[in-house]
């Protein structure tokens, strides 16, 4: 009887501890954002010569934090099915490089902004929205990270700034491009953009 009670209470305890995962998405995002800020604040990397090292470190954190394939798939949506496997692979790669070229300077321009982790909102069984506020000297900018549970970990698949989604923004643009170009032509446009800009 006692043994049965012990087994039962252990079982109950395990059941009760299941909801703990609710805090994991925010913790995951927070840990990554902290790493980014650490790199941006590192006095040893302040020099112009250390810029490439800084970028390399940030790239590493980005790869850990973001699910580039999910992000790319959502940016193309129905058009994703128009690309063959090789094209998809190249698109994922080019898109990542294009995002880097577009945003790296703004990120490196970090001065001392604070990132406040506000709340975590569940969007679905495997998707959560982490709401943060970036506090600059003059304004408060809401930045939401949408994360998806894949392979046991939470990865970012969209960033929503001032209620405007990055995926939505790029989806509109890629839709326009693919309405007038073939997938191969779109890839060529991206190749040129990544090389040239």
């Amino acid at each position, binding site marked *: 009887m006692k043994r049965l009670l012990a087994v039962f209470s252990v079982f109950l305890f395990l059941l009760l501890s299941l909801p703990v995962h609710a805090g994991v998405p925010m913790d995951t995002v927070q840990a990554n954002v902290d790493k980014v800020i650490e790199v941006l604040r590192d006095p040893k990397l302040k020099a112009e010569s250390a810029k490439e090292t800084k970028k390399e470190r940030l790239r590493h954190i980005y790869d850990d934090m973001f699910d580039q394939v999910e992000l790319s*798939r*959502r940016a*193309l*949506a*129905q*058009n*994703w*099915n128009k690309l063959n496997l090789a094209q998809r692979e190249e698109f994922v790669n080019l898109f990542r490089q294009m995002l880097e070229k577009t945003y790296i300077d703004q990120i490196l321009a970090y001065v001392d902004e604070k990132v406040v982790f506000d709340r975590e*909102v*569940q*969007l*679905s069984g495997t*998707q959560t929205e982490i709401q943060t506020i970036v506090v600059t*000297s*003059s*304004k408060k900018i809401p930045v939401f990270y*949408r994360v998806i549970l894949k392979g046991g970990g939470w990865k970012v698949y*969209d960033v*929503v700034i*001032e*209620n*405007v*989604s990055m*995926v*939505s923004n790029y*989806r509109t643009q890629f839709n326009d491009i693919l309405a007038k170009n073939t997938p191969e032509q779109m890839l060529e446009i991206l190749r040129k953009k990544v090389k040239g800009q």
Partner: protein
Amino acid sequence: MKKYAMETTVGVFFFVGLLLIGIMTVKLGHVSFFGEKTYPLSARFTSVTGLRVGSPVYMFGIEVGRVERLTMDQKDRKAAVELQINQGIKVYDDAIATIKTEGLIGDKYLRIDPGGAGELLTPGGTITETQPDLDIGDLIGKYAFGDVKK
């Protein structure tokens, strides 16, 4: 015989009149006798400013449904919108629902980009990617006045 003919005529006219009123009601009032087949979907927004029950849902510029219900989730601080989408319109789980304004200051409507690289949403499914309407006033205020200190 004549009396009956008169009454019959009046009766027929009256019946035709009622029928016409019925058809007008269906056409103008969006009331459907045969139940335009629709299925429910839901979406949650941080704000649904101006969206009303009955507001249209557009996809590629074509009306594909209506807003059925608006409820509030105070815990998560979101507005939950229940939609009725016409049968046959496919919406996937990577769909994006955005609230837009007709023109600059017109009526609000919901626009759905159906997505297509994910799973098909079944009746009762939820569109997770949503965007509220752009609050131009807010944005201008934030970025115009924010620069005063610089």
